[in-house]
């Protein structure tokens, strides 16, 4: 069976800085794969590379990204665009800014449906109503006629989730979809993503720095640091029996309700230092890094 997403030895550089240093990753159909790491680890950069949304000054220096066996980096721009939003969808990080502020919610969902499914405007509005109902928004017809600033952040994230799943994508990239939301809304959003994933049969690449979120919804997880995958495996394995010192340190640094706060251990600076110096060593020409 072809993997939904295959990333092989992906290296991305911004100027002289290597932000991804040979990342390899497989996401199987219907799998929820967590991608964890601290800020700057390159997790969002990986998501953006898959979507072809790397910043203008970033270049892919080597590696492959394949979606359902098709090389995303080699295909024509129009072909790639026809996949985006339809077969590969994004749930963006910040619901407050990811909807166009001057377009009504209905117009935004509608333009997606018209673009990819070729629906007429009335048909698109009808479908948009169904989509909003699916993400548990009450009075969907009315919400469609509102502007983004007139609805709450949680509702905006629901709208974005509805848009992501609108065309039954086989891969959804969720880029820290809960980070900008408060904890009570976070849980609802996670459950929503989980429910929609099941009903639409999509695989999800879940980018987060929250190990609690990973434990809740991801079947497998990759731990990223400084643009490399340090460790990957089944979520339960990685979280219960971490092999890499960094993963252990990350786990020790996660606040837990069942342990006193004094036992909380930030990641030791020495470990960070060691990881970064390893990363620098890998950058030097002539030294072969792990794929």
């Amino acid at each position: 069976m072809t993997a939904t997403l295959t990333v092989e030895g992906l290296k991305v550089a911004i100027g002289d800085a290597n932000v991804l240093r040979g990342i390899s990753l497989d996401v199987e159909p219907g799998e929820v794969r967590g991608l964890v790491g601290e800020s700057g680890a390159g997790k969002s950069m990986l998501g953006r590379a898959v979507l072809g949304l790397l910043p203008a000054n970033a270049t892919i220096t080597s590696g492959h990204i394949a979606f359902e066996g098709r090389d995303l980096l080699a295909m024509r721009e129009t072909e790639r665009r026809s996949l985006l939003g339809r077969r590969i969808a994004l749930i963006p990080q910040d619901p407050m800014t990811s909807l166009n502020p001057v377009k009504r919610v209905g117009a935004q969902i509608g333009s997606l449906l018209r673009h990819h499914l070729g629906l007429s405007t009335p048909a698109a509005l009808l479908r948009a109503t169904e989509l909003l109902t699916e993400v548990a928004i009450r009075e969907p017809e009315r919400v469609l006629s509102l502007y983004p600033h007139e609805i709450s952040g949680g509702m905006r994230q629901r709208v974005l989730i509805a848009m992501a799943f609108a065309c039954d994508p086989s891969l959804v990239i969720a880029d820290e979809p809960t980070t900008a939301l408060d904890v009570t809304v976070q849980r609802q959003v996670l459950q929503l993503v989980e429910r929609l994933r099941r009903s639409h049969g999509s695989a999800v690449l879940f980018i987060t720095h929250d190990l609690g979120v990973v434990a809740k919804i991801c079947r497998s997880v990759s731990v990223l640091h400084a643009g490399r995958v340090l460790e990957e495996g089944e979520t339960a394995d990685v979280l219960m029996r971490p092999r890499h010192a960094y993963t252990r340190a990350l786990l020790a640094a996660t606040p837990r309700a069942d342990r006193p706060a004094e036992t909380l251990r930030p990641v030791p600076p020495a470990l960070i230092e060691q990881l970064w110096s390893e990363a620098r060593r890998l950058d030097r020409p002539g030294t072969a890094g792990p794929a």
Partner: protein
Amino acid sequence: MVDIAVTSVATPPSRMIAGLKRGGARLWIGAALVALLVLTALLAPMMALHDPLEQDLLSAQLPPIWMQGGDPAYILGTDSLGRCVLSRLIYSARTAVMVALIAASLAALIGIALGLFAGSFGGWVDQLTSRLIDVWMAFPPVLLSIVLAAVIGAGLTSVIVAIVVIDWTRFARVVRAETMVQLTRDYASAARAIGLSRAKVLWLEILPNLVPLLVTLLAVEMGIAILVEVILSFVGISVAGDTPTWGSMIAEGRQIVYQAPWIMALPIGCIIASVIGLNLLGDGLRLALDPVQRS
């Protein structure tokens, strides 16, 4: 799975009313002045009591009726050739409105297109457009208009061409900068992530966000176009000799400003009212059109 959250929103008050409220007094005053200007231009033949070209040398330089020696037949008096000042002011509005509408719209069209282009492509395309704008802006506009008038001949067309050729830079510069800002916003990358092409992102997502800004710019530009036409008709390179314009009225009034100051003062008043009206309307509309309320 039980995850149905009861999510509801309060009904916002009617958006149009809220928008009109945000626009405030300047929206109303601006709209009233501009409406007056446009109606005058449209209904000039019905409003003017006299033919603006009709000379009556026996009643030349009559003062307005509220002054000593005024004639009720000429409410705002007559000029040195005995032509009705009010009728000439009314007919002049036609030239002003025509120039404002056509020149400002064309300048906007060219400027917006080039601004979007430069702002979204960046790199050498942007460099080329930006340097072109710099060079263009360094050129004195009135001088360029005079050169243009000399090349393609005096007349309304050359006035409009001169304004368009010079003032597209105003739009291009602002649109370029704002496009760059908007493209870094999350909604723009979200739009690209749903597979919209660059052109569609610009047209469907970015441009609607520029509307409040463009409305203000367009209104300001219309005011500028009126002023440029006034300057050019003052120096006599606008419309053909006998068509009344505010600029030519000022030029004629200037020679007899000590004997009949109203002949010069009245067209100046019209120009000021028109330009202020357009600026106020643009400002009011920007506030009214912005759906995100700023408190």
